[in-house]
């Protein structure tokens, strides 16, 4: 097991360094004067320009700059935002809980519906139900989620007036930010005026959760179905049937447990999809999270913010992939002992 962990780590570290190199190169590819790109101003006086060039270390050899950058990244220094003049890391951390909260809800939503739907489709293979589930999930998988969000707003918010259109909370409330997770912060708030704010936060989560969860839902349902079908064809399932066990017992205890291993892996690997989806979902619902921040950073030519954001998200995706990978090895000796 230790060897397995070490080989996987040995693969991850160079990749992570590669990502740092990529973001290092990325900001240097931006056309224009390097100082102006980083300060976000044009027409800086020559004296100030030279001063800034030296201050930012851009006058030193490239490899020194790179090692400086790596050192900074490892200490959590991602540079300074051009717009807010705050450290990019602080910006990221203050917006991240909003994205995480949404992503967790999307994950729960997609798993709660996708898993049972996939299991049932496999059990009733070839039935009308199976076809409906597979058809729906292929449609969900093909969905342009930015349009799906607008459509849901059109129906539930504009026509029916049931759900709010944007943001995380109704404007009637002012909640002190403690954790950054709106559901927790609204519960923590003891201000009598914030009564009902928890429900408001929950209310605001409904549509973005559906939109962000749609693609993972489709993937989970499809994956669960095919994993279940594979397991249901195994000999030990036939044995269980021969022993006279009920369908429920066979499906829930004998089949599902084994089918879950690949399914959990796929759910874990959805983190990248969720972060990509968050960019669109947050833009549609004006959700103040990382996705919206990244898109706006590009619009404001805030390259240090974009650079830092890409780096942290890539690191995050890599870490979850690594964890999923290790868990998979832990659960499946065949993977662990390969090679």
């Amino acid at each position, binding site marked *: 097991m230790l060897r397995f962990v070490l080989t996987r780590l040995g693969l991850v570290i160079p990749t992570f360094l590669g990502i740092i190199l990529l973001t290092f190169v990325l900001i240097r590819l931006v056309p224009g004067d390097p100082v102006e790109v980083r300060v976000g101003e044009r027409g800086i006086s020559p004296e100030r320009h030279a001063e800034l060039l030296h201050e930012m270390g851009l006058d030193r050899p490239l490899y020194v700059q790179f090692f400086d950058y790596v050192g900074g990244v490892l200490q959590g220094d991602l540079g300074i935002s051009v717009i807010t003049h705050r450290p990019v890391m602080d910006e990221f951390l203050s917006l991240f809980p909003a994205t995480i909260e949404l992503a967790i809800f999307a994950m729960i939503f997609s798993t709660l519906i996708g898993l049972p739907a996939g299991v049932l489709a496999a059990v009733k293979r070839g039935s009308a139900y199976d076809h409906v589930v597979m058809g729906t999930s*292929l449609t969900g998988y093909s*969905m342009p989620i*930015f349009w799906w969000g607008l459509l849901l707003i059109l129906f539930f918010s504009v026509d029916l007036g049931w759900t709010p259109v944007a943001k995380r909370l109704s404007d009637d409330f002012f909640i002190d930010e403690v954790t950054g997770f709106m559901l927790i912060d609204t519960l923590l708030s003891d201000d009598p005026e914030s009564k009902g704010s928890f429900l408001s936060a929950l209310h605001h989560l409904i549509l973005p959760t559906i939109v962000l969860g749609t693609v993972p839902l489709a993937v989970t349902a499809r994956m669960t179905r095919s994993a279940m079908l594979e397991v249901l064809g195994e000999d030990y399932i036939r044995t269980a049937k021969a022993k006279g066990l009920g369908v429920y017992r066979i499906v829930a205890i004998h089949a599902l447990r084994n089918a879950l291993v690949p399914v959990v892996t796929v759910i874990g690997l959805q983190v990248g999809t969720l972060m990509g989806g968050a960019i*669109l979902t947050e*833009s549609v619902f004006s959700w103040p999270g990382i996705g919206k921040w990244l898109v706006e950073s590009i619009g404001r030519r805030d390259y240090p913010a974009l650079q830092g954001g890409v780096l942290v998200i890539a690191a995050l995706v890599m870490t979850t992939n690594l964890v999923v990978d290790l868990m998979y090895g832990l659960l499946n000796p065949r993977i662990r002992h390969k090679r």
Partner: protein
Amino acid sequence: MTDTTLAATPVAKTISPAHEVWLSLKANKGALAGLVVIVVLVLAAVLADVIAPYGYAEVFKECVIKQCPPFWQEGSDSRFVLGADAVGRDLLSRIIYGSRYSLFIGTIVVTISLAAGILFGLLSGFFRGSIDILTMRAMDIILSIPSLLLALAIVAILGSGLLNAMIAVAITYIPHYARLARAAVLTELPKDYVTASRVAGAGTLRLMLNTVLPNCLAPLIVQATLSFSTAILDAAALGFLGYGAQAPTPEWGTMLADARNLIRSMPWVVTFPGLAILITVLAFNLLGDGLRDALDPKLKR
């Protein structure tokens, strides 16, 4: 490929592989439906000048002064079946012209990423060693960044626009092809026909392109069809965010970006372009799924 199939077991009735795939596709209703939609789309794209009632930039002032909703709504103008947008352009015509952009985007993105992916995959698989390690690590790096985010970052550097959006999206797909091609090469290389070809004196380039590559194509074709659909989605997403095709272009994602703020007053300008994207993407996914079943013997039951 002919020199490699000589040793195949004799079959009474020979069905060509292409014919076999077609038979399998024909039996799959979903794939067939997808194929029909794609044919209609191609026709719409090719014949847009003939079948579109109006030009995609033609402005009708009467629809600016007074809204022109689609035909089933009150106050509609029979000339504009799907209604007109806020600037007074016929929506149906714009959607028909938009099919050109979507198919164009899909074709270009798949061609670039497929070509680059095959190149990297062949080099990795044939030469192994440090080339392999370097290439595959580079692919891992690309894969660890969500494709839309990477595409956005690339567009941020290259500048907005349809061409740059296509390049950006294509770059994010290269790893999928490279990995598939490499894996296929690695399974094919130890086979006898490759050794035979090598013994017969075939050079590396000939081995790569003439001997091995044709036998690696099945998974690549499936992936190409499936990424045709994601390419359309991602490019439309970039257009929606304002970094893809720019405003007057009737690209469906860009049309949605223009229509976003009109969702309350003119919902139809939001509904139809998105529906067009969904149907197109769904059609390619149906065909891709069908092709996978037809080409992948492991999945045949």
